[in-house]
């Protein structure tokens, strides 16, 4: 135990907009730090070698694989996880049904200002199945839209190529990113 804990370092960084200070082990992986030290469970372990994308977070606005980054190396920088992109969403707003094509119009079933437009669009377009890849997928899409607010299909595919989804076939995910982009352009 002592060997593993040796050489702890103090770091300060920003996580989801809040400044945090903590001691980390030199071999501590960013994904594990987020999950174990801050209970930010939305980022997932899927492969451990940076292939599946389930651990994707934003590092200074850029999508990165948190299973491939040492916590110690992000000192002084800014991390955003899936928990940090919604706008105060809670469990209190309920989902329901609507005629085909008009599911969950923003502002009704999900009161405006709760979900990020990408999150709302993922629900509306049926882009979520098991949900395990979803947080990483939304983070990669957010990194894209922050840089390129009006991407075409190919640019979306390129942005999420490192995020594997085994349930959907990606079609609805791409539609969701496009639909969110449209909504964000109007806002």
């Amino acid at each position, binding site marked *: 135990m002592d060997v593993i804990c040796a050489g702890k370092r103090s770091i300060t960084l920003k996580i989801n907009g809040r400044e945090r200070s903590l001691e980390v082990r030199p071999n501590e992986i960013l994904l594990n730090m987020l999950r174990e030290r801050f209970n930010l469970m939305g980022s997932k372990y899927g492969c451990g070698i940076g292939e599946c994308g389930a651990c994707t977070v934003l590092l200074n606005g850029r999508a990165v694989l948190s299973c491939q980054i040492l916590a110690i190396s992000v000192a002084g920088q800014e991390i955003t996880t899936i928990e940090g992109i919604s706008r105060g969403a809670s469990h209190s707003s309920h989902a329901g049904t609507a005629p085909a094509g008009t599911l969950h119009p923003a502002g009704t079933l999900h009161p405006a200002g709760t979900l990020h437009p990408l999150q709302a669009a993922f629900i509306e377009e049926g882009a979520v199945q098991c949900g395990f890849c979803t947080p990483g997928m939304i983070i990669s899409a957010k990194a894209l839209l922050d840089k390129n607010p009006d991407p075409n299909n190919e640019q979306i595919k390129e942005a999420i190529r490192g995020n594997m989804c085994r349930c959907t076939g990606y079609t*609805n995910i791409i539609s969701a990113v496009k639909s969110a982009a449209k909504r964000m352009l109007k806002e």
Partner: protein
Amino acid sequence: MSEQYRIIGKRIGGLDEKDKVLGNVIFAEDYTLPGMLHARVFRSTRASALIKRLDLTRAKALDGVVCVLSAEDVPNNESVKNVVGQTTEVGLLEATNQVLARDRVRFYGEAIALVAAENLDIAEEALELIEIEYEDLPAIFDPLEARKPGAPKIHGDNNIISAWKIRKGDIEKGFAQADVIVEKSYRTPRQEHAHIEPESGVSWIDDMGVVNIRYAAQVIEHYRDVAAVLGLPDSRVRVIGTIIGGGFGGKEDITVEIFLGLLAWKSGRPVKLTYTREEMGFARHKRPPYYLHYKTGATKDGKLTAMEAKLVSDAGAYVYLSPWILIYSTVHATGPYFIPNVKVDANSVLTNNIMTSAFRGFGGMEVAFAYESQMDELARKLTMDPLEFRKKNFLKKGDETANFQTITSEALLPEAASKALAALGGKGKGSKHKKVGRGFACSWQSYGRMTYLHDTSNAWVNLEMDGSSVVRSGIPDLGGGQRESLRAIVAEILGLKLDEVHVISTDSQVTPPAGTVTATRALYMSGNAARLAAENVRKIILDQASAMVGVAPEKLKLKSKQVYLAENQAGPENQAKKLSLVEVIKSCAAQGKIPQSLATFKAPFTEPITTDLIRDPVFADFTFGAQAAEVEVDTETGEVKLLKYSTAYDIGQAINLNRVEGQMEGGAAQGIGFGLMEDYIEEEGIPLTWNLHEYLVPTSKDLPDIETVVLESRSGKGPFGAKGIGEPAITAAAPAVINAIRDAIGVRIYHVPATAERIFRALKGKREK
């Protein structure tokens, strides 16, 4: 579509999707308990060997290690004794599985010991301290060779663990009547499920002495298997299922649950065990690889006369579900066609490879690759349009299958195939070295388990005092919206809004047994059980309202928490003539008539199969459909680019249109992976494709937009006439793509996946001819 329903057939979004986009869902790995230990599994690095020495002393002595277990610590070291589907013909099964290997290992990756420690780093260090010595034994990796008498034996004295056959008509006469015959051999690979969530769970002993296991489970009934291994009554083991991060059959067989039960039982501490991605790759079952030999004949006017198929599947080193999978292959071997003369012979064979078992498509998709390749080549030989040729032979309602089962639902195959092709739109042009081609394939796949298993499912539904409803059903949610479907069905029947219905699912001590989320049975079985229970509750309410107002119950309607007394529910003149649901519930309660119901849905039962000859119905019903592809093949490199893709199925009746399309798109994607790129490689029993950079699954860059066409015949056996779609969605994909490649370059690929290398070699072979 579905105008008659308020909710059924619409695009329904459930509460869990919202939590999924927020990252709020507590998946199996996300759960922790105070004082929890972390576990790892010590596994074999030999494919076939005796364990001469196993020394756990140094591992046990490591500071922070709490529990190290080997076979001798396991109360009953046999698991998965369920071998229904084994024919008596090939002798009784001796391939009993070991929880932990005792004296001998039979495949690379077999579990030998378990470690639980204060943290994961210590558990991993302890694995390094386990000492083992092996003595290699003869091994066999080729199932065709393993069938031969002199082959090394994996268990007992016969490697053939399952044999099935079909005999219909006179096969020789059938081929004599044929003007054209196509005879070819095909191969399909092992396929890795590659769900993004690894197998994972947490176990603990509660204050009643019950072993609780919360894990990603497609089959919560495995609490019985854990109890058997621990030597406990079934009632002392509880499985709490989680929202599952993908399964596809990968979380259907035993994974972490027995290990978790053992470690909590022995250590007295909560324990977490999550497989590494590598461990999923080399230690958990795969889709069985198949060798298929097909001979199919037709007359010159395009009528099929005869089909003969020989199938051999590789079961790997232990018997899991490969005998069942083989039944599926045997019954589905003809494809969705009426063929008067049929002969099928099928074997599943033990080898020293990784064990094989359930994977979406379950024996139906391996044969689909072969029979649809055959149909395509026959059409070419006959110079007939491939769709016109198929139309002359499609099964339709009332026809008899090769195992003498009458099709009792609609089979909208001509519509599905035409619409799938039409959905591709205009055809691309290509260039000198980039050839464009199109192909399609049709398929059938059963939904619901084999009828001789006497499948049942239970659901409990009530009305609360405020008129909202609770549903209890054991069915796990695999990500396909299983819970949401139950919510929709009950809301529709009780006239409630979706968010007035709450579903509690997948807990073996809380929810009524509903069976597995496998075999495309969840909607069919649990949906029907929830429907029955909700109808019973509605009857209780309407009977009570009837007694309250003196109007016959059949003249009453239940909607929006009101019981209406007139036919015209909306008319303002009738507004006065209604009772509130809450009033009726209160009246029920006052008289002790609780509005609740526990209902059991029973699938049609048939007698168990007693010989290896299948000549009776095996399935309740089938789902029919077609998929179509347009590809561009680079003739210089063999690379395939999928340009367009469409999938069309008659799903009977959509319950949640979003989820139907999701299953169809995802099934197509997985089937395309199987056809084009997913290649699980083993060399001499050593798996080489452990992680996702070696085993390639389709990414966003590999797939075009997938067009879906949903047909609704309302003729299925599920609630509201629904059929199942989970597995049918995958079956036709590989042959659709392979037929498109054939169209593009004039070369057929007989061994999927059609990697660039295989296509390049096939093109080279053609040029050299």
